[in-house]
């Protein structure tokens, strides 16, 4: 038996949530959900792990802070100390107050850009990357549940389809993978 992908298409995010809840209760594995916008509260229903993007952001922020400390130290203290307003410039700690805006801005810059780029790479949605959503309508007004038969061997594909028919589904598509 060839493995199949089943796409169940819904017209309303709440209907999709109800259907997903029903499938999970019946022991069906939901592979993914495609939607034009984030559906509030879908993550725990389909068993998505909590995002680690915050940790990435923190690490990028720390990296930015370290780079900024290194940069200001090298440029303003070690390589070419400059006398700005008669401020002491022999030691880093004496001058660090003046560097705080730079440290802060560079931390934020690295944290924000690092987080955004990580997000795009992880989702494989960098500009120019081929779209991976199964149906272009999921970027407009349709909400799609993706199921895979190889993950649900305990249910016959027909049984899963029958289960989906009981929910307010708009359309069911099947594809060989």
């Amino acid at each position, binding site marked *: 038996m060839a493995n199949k992908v089943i796409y169940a298409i819904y017209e309303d995010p709440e209907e999709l949530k109800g259907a997903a809840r029903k499938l999970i209760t019946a022991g069906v594995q939901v592979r993914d959900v495609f939607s034009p916008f984030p559906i509030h509260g879908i993550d725990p229903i389909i068993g998505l792990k909590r995002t680690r993007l*915050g940790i990435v952001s923190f690490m990028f922020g720390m990296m930015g802070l370290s780079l900024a400390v290194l940069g200001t130290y090298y440029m303003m203290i070690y390589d070419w100390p400059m006398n700005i307003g008669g401020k002491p410039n022999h030691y880093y700690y004496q001058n660090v107050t003046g560097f705080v805006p730079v440290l802060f801005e560079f931390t934020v810059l690295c944290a924000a850009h690092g987080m955004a780029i990580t997000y795009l790479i992880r989702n494989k949605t960098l500009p120019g990357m081929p779209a991976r959503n199964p149906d272009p309508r999921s970027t407009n007004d349709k909400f799609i549940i993706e199921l895979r038969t190889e993950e649900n061997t305990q249910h016959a594909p027909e049984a899963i389809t029958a289960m989906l028919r009981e929910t307010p589904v708009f359309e069911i598509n099947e594809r060989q993978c």
Partner: protein
Amino acid sequence: MNFTISKRARTFTLALIVIGLVMAAFGVAGDHTDHKQYTWAAFYANALFFFFIGLGCLFFYALNHVTETAWTVLVKRVYEAIAQYVPLGAITVLVVLVAGSMGLNHIWHWMDARTVDVNDAANYDTHIAKLTAYLNKPFFWVRAILMLATFVFFTRWFRKHSLKMDQETGETLLRSHWKNYHRSVGFIVLFAFFSSLLAWDWIMSIDVHWKSALFGWYVFGGMWAGGMITAVVLVLYLKGKGYLPQVNGSHIQDMGKWVFAVSFLWSYLYFVQYLLIWYSDIPEEVTYYKVRIDHHPWLMWGMFFVNFALPMVLLMSRDSKRSPKFLIGVGVLIFIGHWLDTVQMIMPGSLGLHFEHIGMLEIGFFLAFLGVFVHTVLSALAKAPLTVVAHPFLEESVHHHI
């Protein structure tokens, strides 16, 4: 569900007041400054600190009306109850202002008429004389009375209106909601002016030879932070007692976020003020920091560390904002941090070198004020249903989920 003050809470607040007053009495006995200046200053710092917490909550409460925030509706009564300290706080502040004005204390050097008397060569101060257009007693009192009256009026009006809304439904409820909205807009506009004005009049003019354009916002940041910390600790206390069952982890996390965010606002304003003064290094600007860095470096940098670094590191993760014990612990630390901030705003300026370190007077008045404050807030909580009965956003608030 209505809140009743537990016996333990009653004994605790009473004990705080008694211990505080005994400590303060020892402090007063050991106060050898002229006019018992030290006593007045310690009383004033604590009066302001707790008054500011009430004001911070009143501001946030009005802000929620203006932005039509839904999730706070469940904990609305908590902000309301903390704001109920404003009238009493206004009286405590007023006592010190009146005493200063009558010459019973010398917290405000400029209030002494000799400083602006050209014929009094020994005491005449050209700098203060230049400021008389703004810093004169009649104008000072017009501003003070206007500000205090506004705060007290809005505290009472919001409370009355909120209790009235409990009885309403349908169209009348909606009309009340809009009335709340419009009054809150008015209050926020007035508060924008008054929060800066009171900082200049009541605090910055203590160090009359020093000026900072940012000072008003910095004081406002501290006010707001104090209010947010107190509110979240109080909500966690109530939840620990089994009250507010509908308040879920998302509410708590959002309140924690406010503590985190406003701590950053405060730190930003404090540091910007310091940075600009440090950079330009003009004698008339650095005096304020010179006194504090030379004589109280631990107080100044210590409180900055507690109020900035602790919330930043400890409240960054989601789990820390969802753990009641952790949040209460951090909240108490920052609460003390902001108290230290108020102390270092008032004491060095009004006492000069007589202020050496925090002693019996500051801590004694702190405990006594804390007792009175907690008692006032808990009594206000007990007088009304703990969650609002009717509000257009009540349902949305109950289902708050982030």
